[in-house]
Structure formats: structure tokens, C-alpha cells
């Protein structure tokens, strides 16, 4: 996938790195026992620690550590058995301690890798720079009171994993694929629900451009807190074009933090470099260095599920799927499980066709996840069995499927009740053929004169005469014999 911005002075390449903040799935916060649930009433899930009360001290939530290690393993990354929490100092009204407890030069997870599944079926490896644990801030609400901002500290102290990519991404589309793949892995691992709307997955994009062929990195701008995959792609495309325009008009890009305005589809300055905070990181003296041994990591490793890349490879091998189809199926763990339940012991390609086109179409139309599919994997499997044993034609199977969607009933009872069994009795079909042949002497003559493409029309007539129940394969076979000159 090549993405080149054509400028007057030449072609430009885009260099992108993403920083993703993923909220850790955990019952309680990173350093306090308060609940980490989303959606509770304002300031109802706040401990004295989260509110930064005098004398309060943080205590690490071991579950969050395990989740970070788990995620690191899922990203094939180096797990650091010794890491250090540091304070990132700055003032903001929704950050009660006056500092955020984060990790700085000694993160819990080091370098790793994420494989992009490209639309052409190929792959591309993107480096992961690091993953570290940190506290979330609270929320400031500026539009509920005439003269004051209101603050909700429910989110204050919730555990986040900051996952930083290397600047390996080269197109807005790759950034989108990266985000979706990362989300997929996090969901497989059960370490983040990946819900961008609720803010449990947030993305900052670092963007710069350089002339094609150049290897030096130019000044980058960071676009903060973009909250959907589409917006991330739009923001990058806009920002890259802006850089090119500035360079080509003889200007210079200033390093700064920018915001993406989704309504206008543009980025604009949030903080210039001069206004940038000096965070004065230093090791948090309230917390000991975080240390664990090989056995701890091994224990977590033993509980990892089969991850998308491995599942994809297996689907290709075991089910003979092509890379693209396999990639689509494994992107969501539930989709993959559904497919496997249908495909096991059956024609895998047929199963893939039914799942990827028919089932996904219904889910998209209804906007429900596969776990809420009106047609269960078990029922779909049995429908495919009815096709394989010639009880149903593909055409009839589609009708049955429609009824299954509406009623949720199993295919056998639908077939039974509707008398929808496919006619495979050659006698009955021959009778219908004879009737069609007798009534359409002109068409028969045309066919025999060489207009063989009207075979389809004959099949249609026979199907019509049998209320669609005739086996289409058997029809063509018998018709071919009957019409032979």
C-alpha cells in the first residue's frame, strides 16, 4: 500500500507513530480499591486516594500488573521483570494529586511487534516501542455551569496501558488497520474492552512527512485524543497534507500538540512547544520498584488464548481459507468461534461463504454482535448439512435461512413445516420437464439450433413448476439429456 502526497516540489511520504491509551479491564483502580466501572453517577467511585487527599498513599493493584504483562505477551514483547513507577508532574483541576503516576524510563513492557493484515492478503510488521501502566485523570465538565467547571473523579486513578508504536506506519489506512488489530488483540486477551466511544481506547497520533527517499525524520506533531478509527485516519491525512503544504510554501513545522476537530475535519494547535509542560518525572517514592520473576510471567503466559495471528494461520491450514478471509474471520474472537462451530466437520469454504456473507450481512443490518445473532452457529451448521445431503438446494437454503432469521427456529422444523424438501426424485422432475418441453416447442427448437445459453431459462421453468423444490443440479442434468438433439 503506497501513500504518496504529490507536491509541487516532489513526492512526500508520511511517517506515523501511534500512542494508544487502553483502559485495563479490572474491577478496581490502579492504586486504590475504588470501582473502575464506567457510567456511575458523578464522583460516586472515588476513594480518598483518587481524590488526592492529604496523607493518602497508592498501593498497586496486582491484577492490573498481570493485565499489562498479559498484553505485553500478546504483543510478543519483552517483559521487564523490574519496572518503576514515576510521577509526571503538572497541574490540572481533574488531576487531584498534582501528578500522574506513570512509568517513565523503566516501563513494565519493552519492545514488541504487531502484524498488520493488509487488504491484499499480505502482512506488515509494525514495531511496538513500549507499554507502560499509568493512572487516568478525572473528567472536567465545562458546559454545565455558567461560571464554574465541574469535575467528576470517577475515572481518576483508573488503570491505563499506554501502548506506543514505533514510527513504522506509512499511511492513514495502516494506522486504521493497526488500531483495529491492536483492539482485536486486547479483546482476545481480555485486557481492554476496546470501546473507543466510552473512551476505554484513545489514540494520539504522531505525524510527520518527508520527501520520498529521505530517511531523516522531520518535526512531528502530536494529535491528541482522537476517539474513533475513522477520525484517526482523517486526522492523519489532514495533518500530513498540512505539513506538505507548509513545507512547500517555504514554511517550517513547529513541534506542537494538536486537536482534531471531527466536525470540520481539521487539526488545530492545542499547545505549542513553548507551552509544553516540563513534567519533572522522578521515581514515585510512595511505591517500590515493581518486581516479579519468570514463574509469574510463565503463569500468565499459560493462560493466553490463541491470538488472531495464530488463529489466522490455523484457519488457512485447517480450513483452506485464503489469508484475507481468514484475517476477516479472526479479527473478532466471537466471529472466529462462530465460524469454527459451523465449519467443524463440514465444507469450510461453504461455511465461510455463509458466515462471511449471509450472517455478517444480517448482523450489520441489525447492528448486533455475533453473540446476539438470530441464527446460532449450531442451526447454521445444520442448515449446511441439509444442503450437503441434498435435502435443500442452495436457493431453498437461503429461503430457510430467511425464516431462521425471523423466527430463530432450527432449519429442520422449518423444512418440515413448510414442506420445503428438495425434490430429488428423477421421475417427478422428468414429469415437470416433459411438461415444460411440451409447452415450449419454439424454445426447444432454438436450443437444439445451438442457443444453449437458454438452458438457464429451462431450469427456471422446471423450478417454477416444482415450486422451487427441484434439485437444480438434477434439473440441469435431466434437461441436458432431454433437450439433446
Amino acid at each position, binding site marked *: 500500500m503506497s501513500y504518496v502526497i504529490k507536491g509541487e516540489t516532489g513526492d512526500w511520504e508520511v511517517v506515523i507513530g501511534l500512542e494508544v491509551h487502553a483502559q485495563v479491564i479490572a474491577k478496581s483502580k490502579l492504586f486504590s480499591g475504588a470501582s473502575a466501572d464506567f457510567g456511575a453517577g458523578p464522583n460516586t467511585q472515588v476513594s480518598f486516594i483518587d481524590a488526592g487527599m492529604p496523607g493518602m498513599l497508592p498501593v498497586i493493584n496486582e491484577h492490573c500488573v498481570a493485565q499489562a504483562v498479559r498484553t505485553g505477551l500478546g504483543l510478543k514483547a519483552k517483559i521487564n521483570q523490574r519496572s518503576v513507577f514515576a510521577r509526571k508532574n503538572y497541574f490540572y483541576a481533574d488531576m487531584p494529586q498534582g501528578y500522574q503516576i506513570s512509568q517513565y524510563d523503566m516501563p513494565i513492557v519493552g519492545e514488541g511487534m504487531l502484524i498488520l493484515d493488509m487488504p491484499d492478503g499480505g502482512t506488515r510488521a509494525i514495531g511496538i516501542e513500549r507499554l507502560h501502566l499509568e493512572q487516568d485523570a478525572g473528567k472536567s465538565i465545562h458546559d454545565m455551569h455558567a461560571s464554574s467547571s465541574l469535575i467528576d473523579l470517577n475515572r481518576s486513578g483508573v488503570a491505563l496501558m499506554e501502548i506506543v508504536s514505533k514510527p513504522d506506519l506509512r499511511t492513514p489506512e495502516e494506522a486504521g488497520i493497526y488500531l483495529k488489530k491492536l483492539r482485536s488483540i486486547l479483546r482476545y486477551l481480555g485486557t481492554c474492552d476496546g470501546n473507543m466511544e466510552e473512551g476505554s481506547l484513545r489514540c494520539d497520533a504522531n505525524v510527520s512527512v518527508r520527501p520520498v527517499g529521505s530517511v531523516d525524520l522531520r518535526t512531528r506533531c502530536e494529535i491528541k485524543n482522537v476517539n474513533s478509527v475513522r477520525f484517526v485516519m482523517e486526522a492523519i491525512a489532514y495533518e500530513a497534507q498540512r505539513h506538505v503544504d507548509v513545507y512547500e510554501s517555504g514554511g517550517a513545522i513547529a513541534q506542537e500538540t494538536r486537536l482534531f476537530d471531527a466536525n470540520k475535519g481539521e487539526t488545530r494547535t492545542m499547545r505549542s512547544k513553548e507551552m509544553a509542560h516540563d513534567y*519533572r518525572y*522522578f521515581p514515585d517514592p510512595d511505591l517500590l520498584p515493581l518486581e516479579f520473576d519468570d514463574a509469574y510471567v510463565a503463569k500468565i503466559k499459560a493462560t493466553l488464548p490463541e491470538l488472531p495471528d495464530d488463529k489466522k494461520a490455523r484457519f488457512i491450514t485447517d480450513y483452506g481459507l485464503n489469508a484475507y478471509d481468514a484475517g476477516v474471520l479472526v479479527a473478532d474472537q466471537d466471529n472466529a468461534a462462530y465460524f469454527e462451530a459451523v465449519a467443524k466437520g463440514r465444507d469450510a469454504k461453504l461455511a465461510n461463504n455463509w458466515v462471511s456473507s449471509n450472517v455478517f450481512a444480517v448482523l450489520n443490518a441489525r447492528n448486533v454482535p455475533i453473540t446476539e445473532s438470530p441464527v446460532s452457529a449450531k442451526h447454521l451448521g445444520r442448515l449446511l448439512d441439509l444442503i450437503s445431503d441434498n435435502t435443500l438446494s442452495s436457493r431453498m437454503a437461503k429461503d430457510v435461512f430467511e425464516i431462521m432469521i425471523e423466527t430463530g427456529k432450527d432449519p429442520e422444523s422449518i423444512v418440515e413445516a413448510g414442506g420445503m424438501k428438495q425434490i430429488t426424485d428423477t421421475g417427478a422432475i422428468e414429469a415437470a420437464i416433459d411438461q415444460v418441453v411440451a409447452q415450449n416447442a419454439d424454445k426447444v427448437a432454438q436450443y437444439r439450433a445451438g442457443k444453449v445459453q437458454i438452458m438457464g431459462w429451462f431450469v427456471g421453468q422446471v423450478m417454477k413448476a416444482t415450486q422451487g423444490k427441484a434439485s437444480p443440479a438434477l434439473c440441469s442434468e435431466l434437461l441436458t439429456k432431454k433437450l439433446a438433439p
Partner: protein
Amino acid sequence: MTDLTSLTIAAARDKLANKEFTALELTEAHLEAMDKSKDLNAFITTTADLARARAKESDARFQRGTAGALEGIPLGIKDLFCTEGVETTAGSHILEGFKPPYESTVSQKLRDGGAVMLGKLNMDEFAMGSSNLSSYFGPVKNPWKAKNRDGDLVPGGSSGGSAAAVAGHLVMGATGTDTGGSIRQPASFCGIVGVKPTYGRCSRWGIVAFASSLDQAGPMTRNVRDAAIMLTVMCGHDPKDSTSAPLAVPDFEAALGQGVKGLRIGIPKEYRPEGLNGEVAALWDKGIQWLKAAGATPVEISLPHTKSALPTYYIVAPAEASSNLARYDGVRFGLRERGLLGDSLDSMYSKTRAAGFGTEVKRRILIGTYVLSAGYYDAYYLKAQKVRALIAKDFTDAFDKVDAILTPTAPTAAFGLDDKQDDPIAMYLNDVFTVPASLAGIPGASVPAGLNSEGLPLGLQVLTKRWDEETMFRVCQVLEEAANFPSLKARP
């Protein structure tokens, strides 16, 4: 009732158990003493009604036979410890009116042990100071007076209110906190015992933080046994403080009376700099002789990085403080200085913090912010951490050769309240002998050992290796017995 205020904790404990008087009577006697000694300004908040109520509960527990280790003992709590429903200021305007909805672990343990809190003791603002002059609530007066001159003296700091209240018999004991000497130096100035235990011995949970890697709570009492009794109750592992050690609590009182026979006592040569006050040096020599007479062996040792301790401390402590004090922003509790309508958030911060913090606190926030800033971090903070490790290693090496170390506690006796104190560096030098142990995290205690020519108390400091408070108490007790220190009598 005055004689009730003369008792030691150990004596009062036994007499309460024998029902010679009630906890309420003991508390009333001290409340009366507090009332008569308001001039000392030792308390920021007094809690007489609460104290009476708790004393009555103590008496009820004595009746039921469920008395705790400190049942009915009237204590003062330094105003750095958060106390549930009782104003906790840290000596600062910025926390004025703040009533925590929680109780610090240490003060909770004392409560659980039956102790009766009489009030919250004055202190240098945010525990930053060695004179108690930086308190927003005014200076504390040392109950001691110089023989030949008038004028009030400082009690030392930062636990100045604690030291004055104990020395003046307003309370039987008090909690202090020590970051660079804040228990030991005022104990020395006021002629009482002050113990800073090993870092990690007492939970820091609920104590307003000054410098997290250094802060430790400890007892301040009129004798060594009382300190051992109090510390046993105060310390212990607290899962709410990640730096609190998961160790069993020894019975420190049981360690007393074992003497020092056979112990090797380190005498660090670096603590005898040129120009050391002659009376301080002489008292130190006396201390060495006392221990020798009791069967210990003095050993000259070297702690080569001693001279770097003070500058190191004045980088590490302000760095941590600058971050710890960021939460005082006017948003959630304490002082808020509102600007005009439409003023920015930053303006509220700066107005609140400008009005809420005193000069010394601001100075340390600025120093701390500076040493952590980009471009200076390596040269200051990082280097200070390295030096700190060397200082700790000095002690580790020394304790291979000796069981305890004896030094003076402070370079001088208490100075005048009105002495001009415009040189912060001169003030910082008060902590020159106490700061190294703080940086190393080892326990240290000050024992009153004698009077100078002006009749003012001087203390000797005993240091031991980490978690070896028991040896420290043994040495302290021998010094105490030998010194026969003329403690202040209860005030008339």
C-alpha cells in the same frame, strides 16, 4: 493533681491499672496543665471534650479488664497526622479548617491502644524547619530558659510543639515525624527523648507527606522506656503503605535493661568538624566514657560521605516535597483564593498557593521544582540519589564493625526565638548530624545527656542498623541512666 503530670507513661500505666486514679483524672490534670501553658503555643488545636470522652471510655475498659497498652495515657498528636473529624493543618494556612474524614494509621494504633489524644501539636509548616518559626499558627516557645539571659527560645523543629508539650508536662508523650531530624533535633533542644525508627517501621498512611522517602513517625517522651512503650504501639506493617515493612513488631520495652556490655560503639570522626561547639564535643566525649564504663567498646569509624549529606538532603527532600505539595491547589479542600469571575484555573492555583504557603515552603517547592526540571535532573536529583546510596553504604560498612554509633544530636543548644533567622543555610545546618541517618533510612534517637553552660539541654544521638531499634534503646537507656539528666519539673 499537678503531680499526675509528673508521671512517666510507664508509671501512669501501672497506677491506672492499680486504679490509683482514673484515666479521666489523668486527662483532666493534663488539660489543666495545657490551659496554664497556653503561652507555649504548643497546640494548634486542643480537643478537650473529645479527650474527656475517650478518657471515660478508657476507664470503662479498665473496668471491663480490656485495657490496651496505652490505655488512658494522654498524648499529643503532631498536626501532620490526619485525625478523623479533627482539624489537621500541617502548620499551614493552606490546610486551615481541613477536617480529614479518616485517621492516620499511627494515630489509629495509638487510639486502639487506648491512648487519649489531647490535641494537635504545633509544628513547622509542612514539617519544613528546625525552629518551629515557620508555623502559620505562630512559633512555639521552648519551656526551657537560658540561665543568664531573658528571652524565649525555640523548641527546635519541625516537631517543636510535640517537644515543648512533652518537656513542659502538658502531655505524657507525643507523636513526631522526622524527615531530616524533626524528632531528634527538637528532642535535643527540649531535653526529652525522641526516636526516629527505621524507615518503613511506622506506616506513613494518613500523615501529610513532606518527603516520602524520608518521612518517619516516632515517639517523643520524657524517658527512654516511655519511648519504647509508645513505639511498640505505633509501628507495624500496614498494607496501605507500600513502603511499610512486613515485619513483626518487637516488644521494644523488653529490650531495655540489657545494658551495653560487649557492644562496639562507633564514633564517627566526620562528626567532629573543625569549629564544633566545645560544650557539644565535651558532652559527646562524656557519652563515650559512660558507655565505656558500662562495658561497651568505643571504636573510631569513618563515614566518609557525611559532608555530602546535607546538600543531598536539600535536593531529595525539596524534590519530593515539590511534588507532594502539588495537591494543595484549592480545588478540593483547604484554602481556595478565588480570583475574579472569569479568572483562569491557573490564576486560582497561583493565588491560592501564594496565599496558602509560607516563605520556607515556597522556597523548598522552588528548589524542588528546579532540581527536577529538564536539563537539571541529572546534575541534581540523579546525582543526589547516587550520593544517597553512598551515604547508606557508609553506614552499612560501619555496622560491619560496630553495633551502634554515638554522635551529638545537634550542633548547638536551643537558640533564641528572636534571633535573626534570615539565612536559610544557617538554619539547615541544625540538621547536619541527623540528616545522614534519614538518608540511610536507619533508626536514630536523641537522649538528653546534659546541660550547657547556659543551663540548656543537649542531646546525644544513637544510631543503629536498619530494624535494630532494640540495640538503639539499650544504648539510649544506659546513656540516660549515666547522664541523670535534670528534666524540667511540671510547670507550676
